């Protein structure tokens, strides 16, 4: 054994540019997310089936809602398709928290943490992979919705608004899921994630518009920023003469909600990651 070797042998790269590494690392983590999705489709299937089932069952069982005076659309699928997509996106987002918990429990995440790559890329990469998955879900939901009779009222903008809302919701869900995963580091975190996202979604205009609600739910939904996101998601699916129809007025609230909530949850996630060695 060699006991008098010099310690000065430098690593292969002494001063690499961390900024370019952040991008490459993120992209590698996107790839890992997509590889795992492709190789374990059974894990992705519920995320795909759930929103479609949600859309079909809600628009069937609550069909009568559209008969209410002042309901924004006369097509029940038009109303519930954005809800299905939003639910699927939310759970794809927090699903990131689930897989992070697995990575934390089996030690894979230690490997990532031990590398000198920027902590931001450890968050950005998986979130970008979620965006790709959500886009896939959106396409499937749009196709299924069209078959069931969903018809846009603002052309291509209808789809774009719903997709932007879906991406936004998944980002918020992902930030929240990652942060809780870093905090709890075990499956207790998963229960909290699911429950909180579930409440945030349903205490909004997820099921019925504000003008149909009564009582406490009306109050809760009015102050819930998720209501703004639903307004954006449905702007191109309500009747053209409805006050909620596509306009800057009905879009900016949702965009602000997405931007602010995403920023908050992602910063929370990054903070939680930085504290994980405590």
């Amino acid at each position, binding site marked *: 054994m060699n006991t008098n070797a010099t*310690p000065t042998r430098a690593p292969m*790269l002494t001063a690499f540019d961390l900024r370019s590494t952040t991008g490459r690392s993120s992209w590698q983590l996107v790839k*890992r997310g997509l590889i795992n999705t492709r190789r374990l489709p059974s894990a992705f299937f519920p995320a795909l089936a759930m929103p479609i089932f949600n859309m079909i069952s809600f628009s069937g069982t609550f069909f009568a809602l559209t008969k209410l005076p002042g309901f924004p659309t006369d097509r029940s699928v038009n109303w519930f398709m954005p809800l299905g997509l939003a639910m699927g996106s939310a759970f794809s987002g927090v699903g990131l928290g689930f897989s992070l918990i697995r990575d934390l*429990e089996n030690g894979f995440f230690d490997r990532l943490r031990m590398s000198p790559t920027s902590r931001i890329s450890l968050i950005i990469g998986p979130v970008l992979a979620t965006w790709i998955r959500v886009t896939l879900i959106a396409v499937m939901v749009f196709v299924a919705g069209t078959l069931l009779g969903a018809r846009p009222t603002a052309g291509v903008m209808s789809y774009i608004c719903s997709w932007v809302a879906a991406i936004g919701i998944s980002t918020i869900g992902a930030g929240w899921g990652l942060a809780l995963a870093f905090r709890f580091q075990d499956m207790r975190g998963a229960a909290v994630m699911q429950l909180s996202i579930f409440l945030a979604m349903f205490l909004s205009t997820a099921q019925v518009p504000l003008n149909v609600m009564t009582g406490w739910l009306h109050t809760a939904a009015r102050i819930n920023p998720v209501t703004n996101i639903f307004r954006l998601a449905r702007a191109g699916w309500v009747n053209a003469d409805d006050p909620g129809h596509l306009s800057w007025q009905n879009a900016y609230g949702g965009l602000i909600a997405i931007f602010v909530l995403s920023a908050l949850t992602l910063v929370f996630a990054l903070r939680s990651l930085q504290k994980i060695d405590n």
Partner: protein
Amino acid sequence: MNNSPIIAENLVRHFGDVHAVKGINLDIKAGEVFGFLGPNGAGKSTAVRMLTTLLRPTSGSARVAGFDVVTEADQVRRNIGVALQDAAIDPLMTGAELLALQGVLYGIPGSALKQRSNELLERVGLTAAASRRVSTYSGGMRRRLDLALSLIHQPSVLFLDEPTTGLDPMSRLTLWEEVRRLNREGTTVMLTTQYLEEADQLADRIAIIDHGKIVREGKPADLKAGVGAPTLIINTNTDQVEKANAVLSTFGDLRPGAEGALGVGLRGGAAQVTEVVRKLDEAGVRVQHLEINEPSLDDVFAEATGHRLEGADNAPSAGDNGEEEPSKKKRRGRK
């Protein structure tokens, strides 16, 4: 200033009320293989997690590869390679994909990365399995892949956390050979293990850790010599046991062996054997078998801690996770 690649000064880590590491000091020289030996729960992994920037020390400090593990964590990470206990590897990815991911995380440019990956795969004998998913790998293959991953950026300091726990003897030998080769090439290695033989075979120096404290440190040979007297083991007829023990006890403390064998720690060293035999003969004791055992690391361990490590060596079970951080249970399940 001391420029040893691994220095720890009074390193302490608490998890709530549990004091996992109670102030350890290390000074591991460049080019050394340093063995960190202790039973499960002794604080080995916690210490290594602090040295590898995964865990913040409660107090004390450590410098690895010349950088502080807390304030210069990023620099430390660039200079060390770590193969973790229970090689946590994503089972859905292939060996080559994991190497590519690891390489990018360490900032190795694409052109160099491909070549480096191939070299490493070749080196650990996984070239043929490179495009297979890790879930199809055997335990030994996973450890070898883990080693390759930890070497992607040519680190000058390598941490191996229980590299052979749960491996079959053949795979263990292969891994030992690779560690020796890396060390010959100048890599400083810190190895944690619960296997005495592993520490004895690989380490230039070892530290025995028990209940969060280093209880012995030094070269294996010196430590063994420090325990002192070699043990003389004899077998005799059952009706002569009493007579034999009476003779043996005049040469040192009795150390009964296994299966009814008699033993004594020879105060005067191995040179006394002939005299023992003569005295036994004079007393009319018929000796059927005789052997002399030099002190082992297990004796060192027993002497230092008051309990033996044996058994850990015999049956490393598949579910044996090693020590846990008490406040964060199930951090490292087996993949």
